[in-house]
């Protein structure tokens, strides 16, 4: 049988676990042997390079990759394509986008923008003196981290400094940026620290839903869970459940299973007759879409409710 590889950033984040599961199911259906690789920690570029090399040596037909370093991986991707493999970027577009044969991805900046706009609209006049906690991913500031953070700030109407990094904004409404590693533990300690710095925080941006859950615990501990707005990104089933429970005000949902399935189909087609997938009309990649999930919709921003979000959620 033909074989393919899926290389994710890590395989400890449920997002990638589900993505891998989706790919595996599809591969089984189409009779493809799928080997999966992952970086050891978030941002493990070298591990991904080693994985690409292993796929080439192993004679795979194609690679699905969620790149840790979108610029740096380009060389490895090129050598894979030179060796005759089809390379598809999932979740995170490469830089430049056309370095991969095709891209099935979320627009992370847009995802951030959506929750930013929603938060601004929800706060209304209070947005002018909001006190915002920014719970980011890590101090190495990987691209998803920057895109979502800056997207959110843009959506909220805060002036960005250098859009390539977070933390250089001067707007006094930002209480501070803290890193969370994208898990509950990090979300909790980061929130505690920011609360100690300014107990008046009333809006919390979080890089993903586990971090949001941690932040909520910290707010609950000081009895402020009801009057602080938390926004997040991902749309995983626990996250959507938390929207329903009122833990998270709104989240931007993305669709990893679809990315994975499309990717496998493309490799199967390529293995059969060499056809390559074409991008979405008018875009240089196939946008698998991002949808705002909230039970408190606001005028002018398209959204679905948590019930609908739960149907579409990914694990």
């Amino acid at each position, binding site marked *: 049988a033909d074989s393919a590889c899926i290389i994710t950033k890590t*395989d*400890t*984040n*449920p997002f990638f*676990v589900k993505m891998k599961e989706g790919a595996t199911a599809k591969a089984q259906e189409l009779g493809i042997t799928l080997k999966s690789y992952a970086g050891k*920690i978030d941002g493990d570029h070298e591990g991904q390079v080693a994985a690409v090399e292993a796929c080439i040596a192993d004679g795979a037909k194609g690679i699905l990759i969620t790149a840790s370093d979108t610029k740096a991986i380009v060389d490895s991707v090129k050598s894979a394509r030179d060796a005759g493999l089809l390379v598809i970027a999932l979740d995170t577009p490469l830089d430049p986008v056309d370095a991969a044969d095709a891209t099935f991805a979320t627009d992370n900046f847009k995802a951030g923008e959506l929750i930013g706009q929603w938060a601004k609209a929800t706060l209304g006049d209070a947005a002018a003196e909001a006190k915002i906690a920014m719970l*980011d991913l890590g*101090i190495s500031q990987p691209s998803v981290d920057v895109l979502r953070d800056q997207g959110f700030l843009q959506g909220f109407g805060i002036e960005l400094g250098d859009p390539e990094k977070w*933390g250089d904004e001067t707007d006094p409404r930002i209480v*501070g*940026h*803290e*890193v969370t*590693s994208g*898990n*509950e*533990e*990090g979300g*909790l*300690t980061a929130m*505690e*620290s*920011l*609360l*100690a*710095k300014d107990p008046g925080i009333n809006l919390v941006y979080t890089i993903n839903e*586990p971090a949001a*859950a*941690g932040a*909520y*615990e910290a707010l*609950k*501990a*000081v009895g402020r869970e009801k009057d602080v707005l938390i926004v997040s990104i991902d749309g995983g089933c*626990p996250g959507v*459940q*938390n929207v329903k*429970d009122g*833990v998270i005000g709104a989240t931007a949902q993305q669709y990893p299973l679809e990315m994975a399935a499309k990717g496998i189909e493309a490799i199967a087609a390529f293995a059969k007759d060499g056809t390559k997938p074409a991008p979405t009309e008018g875009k240089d990649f196939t946008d698998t879409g991002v949808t705002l999930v909230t039970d408190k919709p606001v005028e002018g921003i398209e959204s679905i409710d948590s019930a609908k979000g739960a149907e579409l959620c990914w694990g």
Partner: protein
Amino acid sequence: MSSDAKAAVSYEEGLKGASEKVAEFQEHKSALKRLQHWLHMTPSAVPMIVLVVALIVFGLLSPNFFKAVTLSTILQQIAIVGILGCAQSLVILTAGIDLSVGAIAVFSSVLMGQFTFRYGIPAPLAIAAGLALGTAMGFANGWLVAKVKLPPFIVTLGTWQIILAANYIYSANETIRSSEIAATAPALQFWGNSIQPGGVKVLYAVFLMVALVAILAYVLRHTAWGRHVYAVGDDPDAAELAGVRTKRILIQVYALGGLFCAIAGWVMIGRFGSVSPSASTGQLGNIQSITAVVIGGISLFGGRGSIVGMFFGALIVGVFEMGLKMVGTDPQWTFFLIGMLIILAVAVDQWIRKASA
């Protein structure tokens, strides 16, 4: 006795009337001398001084720092590291090192959670099972170190990866949400409860940490077992020759360490609310606990130092982290400054010891 032997030692005649008094000298009892002596005899004194200085500095830099809520937040933030630090101290006192502490804690918390929610086992039983399994993981470390005679660094580097991987595989990376736990198995969140004297919240977890440190300090100082732990770390061959069951002590130390880690895992559920297999403690718990131990003045070569020092070490790190955040340092700079301060704290320790030697 042969006669030439007798002749050969005839000069021992001179011994008759030799003095029988134990040598004594006047002591200079100046205050400085006594301070120096105290610093020498009390390994936890220097970390304590560093801690006090850090508190004062941050108190001056940030107006919000010296509020009760800030200080109680610091205490609750170090509860887990403090408990892991107990395990780490024990192991390091035997001249070992345990890189798997964080992994054991996380996996134990996942086991407690999954036993309750996947198999429907009553929470107290699931907790007991989690504690037992954590102990077993520690036991495995100890067995490899003591019986197979592998270097602790290598053993726990291996088990760290094994346990963490097992944790992800077993849990399928699924988080159990806080609200679910609160609804069906509040025992899991026990250590997250708090008392609120004068409105300031103090977690049960904080009391637990203090109690564990106190018990361990007593055991290490006042029981034979504690002395044996020090002896094993000091010189294992000598200890063995002197009649210490070195291997048994090592296995007990690692197993007890495993139990402490599992307790830390239980505390994690209370503190974070949820059960998450990807908690950062799994990756960072070892470095954090080792940092606390070393800043606390315990020698990485074993046999020297006190658990109370470790406690101050954990506090120092907690105070630095919180203090820097409150002063408003950027996360990248915080990281940078904590690096500086780790080195500085130990340098100050070194300097005071030298001055008082």
